[in-house]
């Protein structure tokens, strides 16, 4: 028994529902909290990013076209899968970043957060829609629709909960996303990708990249087929780059840095609404 050699996991990028190595074959090493090597992660290249964005675009219309009920069930399925691998995440988190107690708390919270957003999919449209009493013979209503493809830049705080707190509202709202995981906590992102993969989330809805933000953020924020960028990374220079590049195609930009994702209040339908567009429709009322 004790002679048995552990089988180590190869961490890969998750693009279009498939796990693959970086086309560049570059890697980087992440350390655990004791500064020992934890894993070798793929260092996603600009081309990997492009492929991920293409996959996200390809998946977007179908994902947005699913019923809210269906999206909610799939998010709930993610929670179920995470619950099933609760111990693994606690172990990984403990090794990578935090105390056992905090790891337990974080995983539980991440599961609950997924459940929270799973329940929102078929409710936020009702809360944020309106029938507008226009002063003419028209029926006029406004409804939220997903913004499209969202670039998500994960925070360094809350290796798991930060990631979940960003991804869940974005996809709950019918968007697809390309996630640039935390440089420190890429291994957790890899494992979360496995959860996503096994949860009936269609390929391309969430694309998970590991790598260096400096490599990827400029290209993500400048990519003309990305509709919005969400960054929770605490990096003033990169925020400026994102904002500057956003102007190329009028991307929506939201910064969530400084948020404590472990707080109960760090979830709300307004996170969903940040990546929704309001569409207003007019129609005459007559016979």
């Amino acid at each position, binding site marked *: 028994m004790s002679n048995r050699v552990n089988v180590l996991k190869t961490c890969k990028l998750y693009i279009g529902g498939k796990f693959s190595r970086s086309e560049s074959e570059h890697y980087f090493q992440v350390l655990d909290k004791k500064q020992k090597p934890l894993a070798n992660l793929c260092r996603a290249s600009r081309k990997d990013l492009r492929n991920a964005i293409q996959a996200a675009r390809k998946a977007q219309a179908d994902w947005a076209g699913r019923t809210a009920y269906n999206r909610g069930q799939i998010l709930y399925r993610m929670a179920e899968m995470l619950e099933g691998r609760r111990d693994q995440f606690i172990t990984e988190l403990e090794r990578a970043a935090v105390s056992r107690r905090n790891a337990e708390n974080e995983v539980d919270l991440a599961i609950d957060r997924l459940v929270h957003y799973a329940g929102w999919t078929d409710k936020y449209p009702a809360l944020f829609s309106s029938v507008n009493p226009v002063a003419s013979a028209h029926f006029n209503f406004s409804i939220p629709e997903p913004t499209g493809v969202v670039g998500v830049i994960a925070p360094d705080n809350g290796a798991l909960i930060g990631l979940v707190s960003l991804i869940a509202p974005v996809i709950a709202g019918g968007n697809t996303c390309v996630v640039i995981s935390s440089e420190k906590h890429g291994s957790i992102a890899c494992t979360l990708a496995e959860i996503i993969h096994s949860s009936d989330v269609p390929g391309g809805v969430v694309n998970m990249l590991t790598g260096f933000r400096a490599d990827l953020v400029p290209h993500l924020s400048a990519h003309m087929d990305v509709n919005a960028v969400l960054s929770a990374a605490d990096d003033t220079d990169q925020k400026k780059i994102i904002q500057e590049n956003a102007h190329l195609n009028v991307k929506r930009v939201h910064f969530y840095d400084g948020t404590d994702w472990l707080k109960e209040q760090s979830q709300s339908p307004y996170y969903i609404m940040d990546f929704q567009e309001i569409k207003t429709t007019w129609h005459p*009322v*007559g016979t």
Partner: protein
Amino acid sequence: MIPDFKQTVPVDQIGVDERVARFRTRSIKKESKLFALKLALQMVDLTTLEGMDSPGKVRQLCYKALYPHGTDPDIPRVAAICVYPNRVRLAAEILKGSGIHVASVATSFPSGMGTLESRIEEVKYAVDEGADEIDMVISRWAFLKGEYGFVFDEIAAIKEACGPAHLKVILETGELETYENIRKASDIAIYAGADFIKTSTGKISPAATMPVTLVMLYAIRDYFLKTGTRIGMKPAGGIRDSKTALHYLVMVKETLGADWLNPDLFRFGASSLANDLLMQILKQKTGHYQSPDYFSIG
């Protein structure tokens, strides 16, 4: 080719109403106003359609038609007078040689609930008595029941009975309610042989409105574009003041063009409108606002 009347030509009610609101914003001033007022007066079918229409009343109406405002030669005459069949002979005698037409409402006016035979009989009687225009009513019950062939055949039969007289087909739009019904009834009437289509009997409210008339003008236009044949239009009932009449003319001009701006193709079925037009004409000519005391009633 006769269209399939089971197929509905789509009409958006609010869009029609909005188009009409645009016509109403046209501001008609100075010479163009005087021109239009005189034109409108020439388009009036001076009408009396009451159970109490005695020969005396009809005689009075005919004189009003002949002498709208004394003997002022600058004031044009109206297009026609419109009476019940039993007053046609009297009217025809008085108006003989004046160029003013005698129109009569035959076909069990206003309900149309007679047998086809009796309605045809009535038409023939009115024509024999001297009417050169017949204003018939359609069988609204049959139309609303979807029996479009029945309505079509009736109109065709009555058209035949008219002989040389022009046929105006009254749709009674106030009972048809929707613009799509009005469009459909217009098409049926036109294809069945109407020379004019007319909105209302004047006995049902609402009578003529601008949106309803616009829908009918569109039907006339489409028929013209297909066949090259011009059908006339007569809104009737509810048009009492000059401003409204001018807005109707704006609508005709901008929908069908100048060719329809004459009494051969456009009429107003009205009684009190004539005097309001006269008052406005006099106002334009004199610069003073007028009083009804100075205008004879018809």
